[in-house]
């Protein structure tokens, strides 16, 4: 025990250690505040929509009581992606993807990808959230704390003295590193406790999995620096090499991969879908009404009883046309979904061998801010849209009046993101990477 206490004293005697620990804690606190600001803005949007929807319905219903078809042309129904407080730790794609969608029962495809108001500069600069502090800055701290653990002893001439006095040189180095690891874990756990209280995060599997992944990630960086420093090169060389590794892993590789993915897998399908859904609906104004209605009944045979009104304008024909916007662009939509999936799969595959990219995606997944979860939310919104259609279509076709419907049942609907966490499996790659680094260090350790 005395050994560890002395090591600890030796470590925290240095001014740099204090400054860097203090700095990372401050930045961590700042990042948590930024996260909580993000959450409160999202919350604000959700509260707003709840209040607005009621007024909006009241006004529209009173304006168009006799014309349900016209009313549904205007009415927007909110579908809300419930906030996960963990999004405050890992904002991920949460700043670009809307958490509230307000949709009409018209063509869904025309509304699916509508964006929120976002400042592209904010998106580009990225969020200084806790995940950023963990992924970018903690490794730097690991480097600062460890790069001279061995070389310092050689450079000050204490290495030889130490090597004849200690039973195990490896044990000596490892205990020095463990002290530093302990210090970082204290800082990390402190930040997580703070995040837990400020962001009101319940202690659940998502929270613990983010914490576990972060700890493993830090351990991975320790094993990496261990591998570098056992070569007993000079402090300057170690610092330079470790920082170059940091630069390559955290800046260059991900940036290169992103450039590769965007130029390798462009998404023309998105634009084609947009045009196809527009044409799918709008051209029906000029084509044979009977054909449109026929096609509509192929999709919804249960409505056949409403017949084939082809004289002038009528709502059945109108909503059949709107339906065609979705139905006639199915091929393009499928191609788009496939492309999105392909991009995500590729990105995930590549990320699985780069710890920082891997952990970013894992964080986002736990926090419900990943791309795949947003697509699930959009699909769920589509299902919500379909339920609305099925509810309103017969009422519109029967030309019911709006006051026969209980509008109070249409409060905003909530969707809960599914995280589908497999904590053990998720941690495996990082664990393997750390073990791998340890294994390749063994031959060098023997020669210490």
């Amino acid at each position, binding site marked *: 025990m005395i050994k560890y206490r002395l090591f600890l004293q030796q470590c925290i005697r240095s001014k740099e250690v204090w400054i860097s620990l203090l700095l990372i804690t401050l930045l961590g606190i700042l990042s948590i505040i930024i996260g909580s600001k993000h959450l409160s803005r999202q919350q604000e949007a959700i509260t707003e929509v709840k209040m607005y929807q009621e007024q909006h319905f009241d006004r529209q219903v009173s304006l168009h009581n006799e014309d349900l078809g016209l009313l549904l042309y205007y009415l927007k129904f909110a579908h809300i992606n419930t906030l996960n407080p963990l999004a405050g730790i890992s904002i991920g794609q949460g700043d*670009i993807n809307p958490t509230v969608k307000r949709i009409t029962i018209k063509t869904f495809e025309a509304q699916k990808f509508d964006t929120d108001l976002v400042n592209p500069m904010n998106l580009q600069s990225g969020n200084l959230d806790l995940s950023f502090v963990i992924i970018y800055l903690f490794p730097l701290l690991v480097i600062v704390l460890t790069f001279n653990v061995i070389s310092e002893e050689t450079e000050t001439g204490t290495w030889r003295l130490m090597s004849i006095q200690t039973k195990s040189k490896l044990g000596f180095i490892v205990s020095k590193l463990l002290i530093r690891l302990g210090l970082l874990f204290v800082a990390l756990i402190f930040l997580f406790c703070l995040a837990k209280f400020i962001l009101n995060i319940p202690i659940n599997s998502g929270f613990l999995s983010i914490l576990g992944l972060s700890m493993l990630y830090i351990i991975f960086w320790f094993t990496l620096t261990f591998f570098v420093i056992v070569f007993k090169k000079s402090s300057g060389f170690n610092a330079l090499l470790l920082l170059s590794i940091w630069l390559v892993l955290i800046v260059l590789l991900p940036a290169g991969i992103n450039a590769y993915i965007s130029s390798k897998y462009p998404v023309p399908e998105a*634009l084609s879908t947009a045009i196809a859904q527009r044409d799918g609906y709008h051209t029906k104004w000029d084509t044979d009404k009977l054909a449109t209605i026929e096609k509509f009944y192929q999709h919804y045979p249960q409505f056949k009883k409403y017949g084939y009104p082809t004289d002038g304008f009528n709502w059945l024909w109108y909503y059949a046309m709107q339906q065609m916007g979705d139905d006639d662009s199915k091929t393009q939509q499928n191609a788009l979904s496939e492309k999105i999936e392909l991009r995500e799969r590729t990105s995930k595959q590549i990320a699985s061998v780069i710890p920082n990219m891997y952990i970013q995606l894992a964080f*986002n997944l736990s926090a419900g801010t990943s791309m795949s979860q947003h697509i699930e939310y959009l699909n769920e919104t589509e299902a919500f849209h379909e339920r609305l259609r099925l509810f309103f279509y017969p009422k519109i076709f029967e030309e019911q009046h709006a006051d026969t419907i209980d509008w109070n049942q249409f409060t905003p609907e909530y969707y809960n993101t599914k995280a589908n966490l497999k904590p053990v499996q998720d941690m495996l790659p990082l664990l393997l990477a750390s073990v791998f680094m340890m294994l390749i260090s063994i031959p060098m350790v023997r020669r210490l």
Partner: protein
Amino acid sequence: MKWANVRLFASNFWHNATTPKTFYLLYSIFILLTAFAAVSGIQNHITQNDIRQDHQIKARQSWEANPDKHPHRMAHFGTFAFRVNPSLGIFDYGLESFTGSTVFLEAHRQNSVNFSEATFSTGTLRFGELSLALLLQLVLPLILFFIGFSSIAADKQNGTLKIVLSQGGNWKEILFGKSIGLFGISTLFFIPAILVVVITLLVLENQMTNSLQWFRVSLIGLGYLAFLFVISTFTIVVSASSSSPKDALLRLLGIWLLLVVLLPKSAQAMGNYWFPTPTKLAFQSAIEKEEIQKGDSHNPNDPHYNKLRDSVLAVHNVSKVTDLPFNYSGFVMREGEKITSTLYKKHHANLVSTYTNQNNITRFSSFINPFTAIKQLSMTIAGTDFSSYIDFQNQADDYRYQLSQTMNELQMEYISPKKESGSEGKTHVVDHEHWEEFSDFHHKPIEFGASFKEAIPAIISILLWTIIAFALLLFTSKRAKAI
């Protein structure tokens, strides 16, 4: 200060720095990265623009394929505006991946610009994208730090500095000489990158590349040269004022981390904090509220439109709208479009000014951060910045307005006044020749003057930084110690 001595120090520095094998390793890695960034940048630029042009044509074809129909149907048929990536987008991606590429233009409605690269990406996009600009802004300074950090500190540590000084060299010559030497090395890295851009522009030469394009390239080139000079002198100055090379390196890396990662991120976060963006709903409902006050063309009993109708009837001395010499419904829609567009423009301008306020924190932080200065200058002049995106939005919205007003006027002129409302059917229609007459949307790249104006703070700050660099050299030459 003798120039011969300065030259001597410069060439000595150059020689020392370029002899070791590690330099060639570093250089080859950088060139490979440059090649990779150039290829993916060019490829991305070409495919994206091909895709967008292709779809612009497709959208146009289906617009023109419309048969004779009611013009209001055409106003809703609408069209798409696809944003064109500027030629210099191959060099600096700027905001490209975070701005939408497609907007649907129709009557009454201002739709959002959708389908940015970021919406189809996983969270890893936030690690950045490897572009030529990123290499020059982020990586090259680090390389210069690595090459130059020990230049004076090492001489100081091993005592050579004292010998040099006692043999007739002076601090000013050493500092200027070594800075120029390091700057010279930086151009070795810089020239291939800018050459790639120049050659690509020459090859891609099309109607979009005009003579002002070369102004842009020269301005970017000069900007980067000034930036690299500033970085070179900083490296040398830090090396001169540190007692050991390790010290110098740690300081330089600290500066890099602060100026490249932490400061820009916090500046933008501060902007975002001080000038919060309204939610989409708040934005839309504010417009809606004012619309209702000003007159709602959808409401048959709206007082504003009733008054309008009465005055129109009085002017033409008729009692029914069907007796007017033009189609009244088209007239009302033209009026409604005018009101809603003005309202939307006003609110949108407010929104843009909120964004501008947010971004101004970053823009003006270039006066304390040369890295931000070059980043801003580079993307603004390349035409991939915020202002060029807003320029696109404005072009698209102007076109949208033209489109719906042209259709409303066609309706007033060619649709019988007897047709009070509705746009269905084949009887009240306009010849399809009119659809072709209305020309397609063409995204014009932002004008050089506008980009230049936007870049002025960045340009001034780069100039200031250059002056500061000289001042620092002079200041350090008076204060520096040989031990």
